[in-house]
């Protein structure tokens, strides 16, 4: 086996896996708490990227200012989607599939709107220091290193928030028994908004690094969000650790595929692994069956 290739792919796999892990946590916290199959998370992600690109190109701000604006835009859009369309549907119907369809509606209309406004072409985000580290045969860019660190710091922050703070425990309470949580005075509505804010912030954050490495396009979000969904199912719904490990595993599988076949097949193989895993362990790596 080609050791140099293996080392490079391992590092790239960890970089990609960290991105997936953070996105999985961002989607997982929303999904496990609200049971909303939040497909429009893709739109939240994309809007964060566009907001940064537009801020940088229109006002000529430093790239880090643009990135902060991007994250803020993601939070606002995420909150808006929950407070607006989702709440309207949730108020009228308990069936989660109806909220999913609302998410689908918001997702396709929003993406098409972005295409009309900005065309389908690539919009890069520039100005981030370009630096490459070379260790032995492995190269890794500064963007990748920062993205990896930010990803794991956000995951850690969410984990601590959920276990160490009252608001975090309120989220767990609503997730495990919404009725009982409301009975002891926890506002379900506020908790929902809180998880949408946290999830959207992480999605917006990671969107910045994806854009720095490539470019913003109107349909960029869907792929990442679906992989995050898969990671959540792989790790087990309701477990932050599970989502993070699931995301990391998917990133590694995707990249290590390159040892044998073209990287184009990475996602397909990762998908195959998820199918097999769901047959063997239907509740995911860290999930528990509902009693």
């Amino acid at each position, binding site marked *: 086996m080609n050791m140099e290739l293996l080392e490079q792919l391992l590092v790239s796999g960890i970089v990609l896996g960290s991105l997936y892990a953070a996105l999985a946590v961002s989607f997982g916290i929303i999904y496990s708490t609200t049971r909303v199959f939040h497909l429009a998370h893709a739109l939240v992600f994309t809007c964060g990227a566009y907001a940064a690109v537009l801020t940088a190109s229109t006002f000529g701000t430093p790239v880090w200012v643009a990135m902060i604006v991007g994250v803020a835009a993601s939070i606002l859009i995420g909150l808006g989607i929950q407070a607006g369309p989702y709440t*309207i549907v949730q108020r009228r119907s308990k069936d989660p599939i*109806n909220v999913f369809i609302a998410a689908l509606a918001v997702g396709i209309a929003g*993406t098409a709107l972005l295409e009309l406004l900005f065309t389908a072409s690539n919009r890069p985000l520039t100005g981030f220091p370009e630096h490459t580290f070379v260790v032995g045969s492995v190269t890794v860019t500064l963007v990748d290193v920062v993205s990896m660190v930010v990803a794991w710091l956000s995951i850690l922050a969410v984990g601590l928030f959920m276990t160490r703070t009252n608001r975090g425990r309120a989220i767990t309470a609503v997730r495990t028994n919404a009725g009982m949580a409301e009975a002891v005075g926890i506002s379900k509505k506020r908790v929902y908004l809180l998880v949408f804010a946290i999830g959207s912030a992480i999605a917006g954050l990671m969107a910045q690094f994806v854009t720095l490495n490539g470019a913003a396009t109107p349909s960029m979000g869907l792929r990442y969000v679906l992989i995050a969904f898969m990671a959540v199912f792989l790790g087990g719904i309701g477990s932050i650790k599970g989502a993070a490990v699931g995301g990391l595993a998917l990133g590694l599988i995707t990249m290590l595929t390159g040892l044998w076949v073209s990287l*184009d097949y990475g996602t397909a193989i990762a998908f195959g692994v998820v199918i097999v895993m769901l047959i063997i362990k*239907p509740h995911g790596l860290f999930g528990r069956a509902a009693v």
Partner: protein
Amino acid sequence: MEYWATIGIAILTYAVLSVSLNLLFGYIGELSMATAAFFGIGAYTAAILSMPPAQSIAGLTLSSGVSGYDLNPWVAGVVGVVLAAVAALIISVPAVARVRGESLILLTFSFQLVFSQLLTSMQSVTGGDQGISGLKPLAIFGHEFTQARQAIWFYVVLLIAVVALGMLLGSSPYGRLLRGMRESESAVLSVGKPVIVPKLLVFSVACGIAGTVGVLQSNYLQSVAPASFDVNVSILVVAAVVLGGAGNIWGALLGSVILGGLTPVIRNFTADAHASQWQAIIFGVALFVIIAFRPNGLIPEGSRLRRGRRPQPELSEATPTPDTAHSRIEVTSESRPVALAVDAEPILVVKGLSKRFGGLQAVNDVSFSLPERTITALIGPNGAGKTTIFNLITRAITPDAGSVTLRGADISAMDPREIAIQGMVRSFQDVRVFQKMSALDNVAVAVPQQPGEWAWPLLLRPVSSRRREREVRDRALDCLSLVGLSKVAQQPVGSLSFGDQKLVAIARLIATDGELLLLDEPTSGVDPGSVEGVIEVIQSLRDIGKTVCLVEHSLHFVDKLAEHVIFLDQGRLTAEGSLEELTSRPDLVTLYFGT
């Protein structure tokens, strides 16, 4: 003419795809986000297999460099359809068989994405972004159909066939079973009916249909390209079904007419380059408005069209029912239970049953037996483990230890469905009737041995299936009249009172022909006026030879019904005997009522 035929083909394509998705979403409530992928599998398979092998002329490779196999287009088409169906089966196995909820959405969505990615990246097989062109035209016996106004007839025939299949399914026992599953899988299993195989079958048939349109399209257009099979197409088909109304073929058709018809209209108003964006925006908004304000779609399930389609006058008139005055069953003056027949053969023997949930020993080494043709009550304070015992002996939950024997046969290793078939059936505390279905259909689902609930007999032996279906309906009506509800046989169960819903659930159990009925709190939530009716019905069950075991809190109820009482406390069997014996023990009275 040609212009309209082209629009017609677009509408018909969406129509077939929507009807196929509707089989899935409407009948079993599962949503597939990969309709376009299965559509594409059909199209690409047919294209690749029927293409001639790549030829090089003067060093230049023709036809996008894709090398085909030069198969007969019809053979290639059949392979395409089969591949689509098989792929569907593989994708859906984990979702249908093991995990519930939104996982089918996730799996199909991911599959769609992976499929689109592979279409563009497997350049040498699929022609990449350009796709494959230069296919042989659609032909029958050498007669070619290259114009839209000719090809449209193929689509019309396909749509008629698919609609006919959908209608057959909708009105058949198979469709009834599927609709039952959509509302409560555990209830379907609890009356001994299958869940997994019918679901997988519907999914692969629906996707096979999508593959068929794909085959047709690749032959008609003589080309395939990835854009026709991407995720947006899948989403638009979902939109068509939801807009029109799920569970209703006419709704799906209406949705696809709107979908296919809107595109040319949009093209008239906007620049061609923006048409698909405007289409997506209009559909997104329409989809949201519908799901928020009219979630059952423009033509909801069971609306006028449907009723007009299959009138069923024979039911209310032809079969005379014993309860014409809508009175409950006549009860003999002897309403007090007879003394326990000690030598009665035990029908069920439970030994050493235990179950621990985390730190809680919910059921602790419980052994008891149920004498045949008697009514036994499980009583005890909340949390005593009564419902858990039902769940354990019917294998809804796996026990940690213990054996269960039904009529001498060990059923400890069976699953809930097999146990129901063996003759032990249970009701649920939260009834789990099929709310959107009529009372008659609720009960008919449970009648055993219906060939029409399997796809092959339904298609291959339609006459005998139909004859049996008449018997099934008569039997279901008999069961309903046994509980005094034949008058409301045609009403959706959701519109009945809670007490009547519980009676429908009991009628459903009777229809299974099971000998041993486990009733979980048959009177909880029932208004006091109706409780007497429930008591009479349960007494009549014993009179027709059933054995009953019930979980009950009302001692009045237990006193009137049960010859045999089992007292449980904190997972242990504390006492057993007649109610009189138990209530004479002060320690039990204290346990039950508190001090």
